[in-house]
């Protein structure tokens, strides 16, 4: 069964909507800069430059919850705009998040620890499942809701789950993607792992030291052909392949040989029924940590051998948006197919010595992009790949 993408939506430090993202990717302008909150000002981060109140106001949101929920609502609303709810199109929301409403809880908990007082009612935002339920409420969807929480591969897995639900006949149309707000919890967490780069991150560069964090949300609407017949939606691309595999190596690090990543990439190509030469662009996970980029490079080399397609990581534009990354990058993949662009891997100077792989360093217009493969890898060795293709 074919699955079509009929809507895309995005918000991150490089744009409040899809068009702004596209313009910024073409202009090769990173959105990463010095943080503006007490917990982020020591770091270079990709913050969405709008407060929660501004988000609610500007995007006329009905929901007033965690920042994770708000960002999710903005991107999901854009993706779903122009789509109508109908009784005969079973519509669901499947969203990924890593920290859910931690941005709310951590403020209350700090106050509780410091002086014993906190606003108990605020903790109702904490649960990760809430952000997805809020998105469903915002869109008026009362069908299936599901939250995937597999750290940095969450959105890719949400897209995969949506595709499988459609293929099984359980749903006709699903809004899939992910959302994560920057919180002191995650900033402190990555600080404890000592994998921040104090300069701009440099994916796939020999000198890379670590990542810059970001926040945002990316969603796509996927539908079956039967659903499109009823909805009259315009297809933008096809969702052709998906896979998740487990590295089973280490709690945080990827295996040096990229075993789990190799499995997920090759399995996704099998699901899509594509050969290596059919892939015209890889939007890599490319977090710019020494470990991820080497491991991912090896996986790509294993699957593609000598004929490695143009590849890049767009994390130097947005920062690593964690559970949202796979959603934002799915949107970028659709843009690449629609407009025929390979997006720049910013800040790249020298190839990793061990692999000699050189990513696409400038945003480049090409004749045609048939298929894009997008990787998302998470803690716990959770490796996911999705493949989007032309119609």
């Amino acid at each position, binding site marked *: 069964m074919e699955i079509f993408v009929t809507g895309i939506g995005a918000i991150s430090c490089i744009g409040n909507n899809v068009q702004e993202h596209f313009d910024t990717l073409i202009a090769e302008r990173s959105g990463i800069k010095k943080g503006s909150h007490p917990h982020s000002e020591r770091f270079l981060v990709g913050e969405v430059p709008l407060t929660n109140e501004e988000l609610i106001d500007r995007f006329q949101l009905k929901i007033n919850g965690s920042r994770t929920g708000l960002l999710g609502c903005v991107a999901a609303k854009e993706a779903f705009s122009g789509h109508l709810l109908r009784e005969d199109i079973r519509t669901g929301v499947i969203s990924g998040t*890593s920290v*859910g409403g931690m941005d709310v*809880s*951590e403020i209350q*908990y*700090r106050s509780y*620890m*410091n002086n014993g007082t906190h606003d*108990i*009612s605020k*903790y*109702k935002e*904490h*649960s*990760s*499942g*809430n952000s*997805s*339920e809020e998105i469903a409420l915002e869109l008026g969807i*009362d*069908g*299936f*809701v*599901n*939250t*995937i*929480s*597999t*750290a940095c591969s969450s959105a890719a*897995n949400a897209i995969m*789950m949506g595709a*499988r*639900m459609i293929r*099984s006949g*359980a749903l006709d149309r699903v809004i899939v993607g992910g959302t994560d707000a920057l919180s*002191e*919890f995650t900033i*402190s*967490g990555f*600080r*404890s*792992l*000592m994998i921040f780069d104090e300069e701009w991150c440099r994916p796939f560069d020999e000198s890379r030291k670590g990542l810059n964090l970001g926040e945002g949300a990316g969603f796509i609407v996927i539908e079956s052909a039967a659903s499109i017949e009823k909805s009259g939606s315009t297809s933008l691309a096809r969702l052709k392949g998906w896979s*998740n*595999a*487990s*590295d*089973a*190596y*280490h*709690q*945080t690090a990827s295996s040096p040989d990229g*075993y*789990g990543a190799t*499995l997920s990439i090759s399995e996704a190509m099998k699901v899509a029924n594509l050969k290596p030469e059919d892939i015209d662009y890889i939007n890599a996970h490319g977090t710019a940590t020494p470990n991820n980029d080497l491991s991912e490079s090896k996986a790509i080399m294993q699957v593609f051998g000598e004929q490695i397609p143009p590849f890049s990581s767009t994390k130097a534009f947005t920062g690593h948006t964690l559970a949202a990354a796979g959603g934002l990058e799915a949107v970028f993949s659709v843009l690449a197919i629609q407009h025929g662009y390979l997006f720049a891997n910013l800040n790249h100077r020298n190839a990793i010595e061990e692999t000699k792989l050189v990513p696409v360093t400038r945003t480049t217009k090409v004749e045609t992009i048939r298929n894009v493969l997008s990787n998302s890898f*998470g*803690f*716990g*060795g*959770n490796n996911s790949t999705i493949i989007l293709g032309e119609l």
Partner: protein
Amino acid sequence: MSAVITSIVSIGHQDSFGKENIWETLQPLGTQSEVVAPDYKTYISPASLRRFSPVLRMALTAAQVCQNETVLPFDAISVGTSLGCLKDTERFLQTFITATGDTLSPTAFIQSTHNTIAGAISMALGNHSYNMTHTQNSLSFETALIDGLLCIQEGKKSVLVGAADEAIEFLELLKPQVIQSAFPFTSGATFLSLQPEGNGTKKAVMDCSVHFNNTNTEEAIATFLKNNQVDSDTIELVLFAGEIPRTIGAKQVNYEQYTGLYYSSAAFACHLATDYALSKEKYILIVNHQVNGKLGLTLIR
């Protein structure tokens, strides 16, 4: 969508671990009950055990025993958790809130993510297959189960589905303002092996569905049973949490009196259903209505 349960293991406040039939030792919980823990050292390597919080220990042990009882290695793992690894989450909050130096202890952060549970299982079992973590408040187990059933439908031969949640003292502060329940917060983990029909001697999960804006439980149940071509007269046992209509099922048992309060306890109800001495041609319905408006329905044969 249906699958056979070939193995099911629970660790929680009941003395259920390693029992042939968990109904035999079932006791309503007192106010001061604790987890009945097996000797984790038998199941978890010392290197892992020293770091693992209670929810990880419970889940990993239950999953390990499921694998021991299942000949085929799992070709998919799907875990549901409503609040995840709360103890490590709280520990890391305390770590950075009280920190004075530049460095922060990373272990609690690493183990605070929801998928620490499923990830640790893949590592312990050396399992490279599909590995998913679902979190959906009171319907976390059901969404993980739906994924598991989907895996079987797609042709997988041996799927591990589980649910795990842990209580921390802090949760009680949320009552009654954020959470209303007569039951104390508790911890629990239940894992089960699913296989395609024809492989099992125990019970089968026939279907599972979730409803997010439920206003009419009776109607939702009627539709669910109709979709599965099951007559409501053939429901021998209803295992429920929260309010349900009194008109369904020959016998009704509130499973929360045995599990206490955690939001993936429907998995334990699944274990109760699996061990129940069911008459021929009869069915068990699990009605999870722990939270108003949210309804999980699971049909067992």
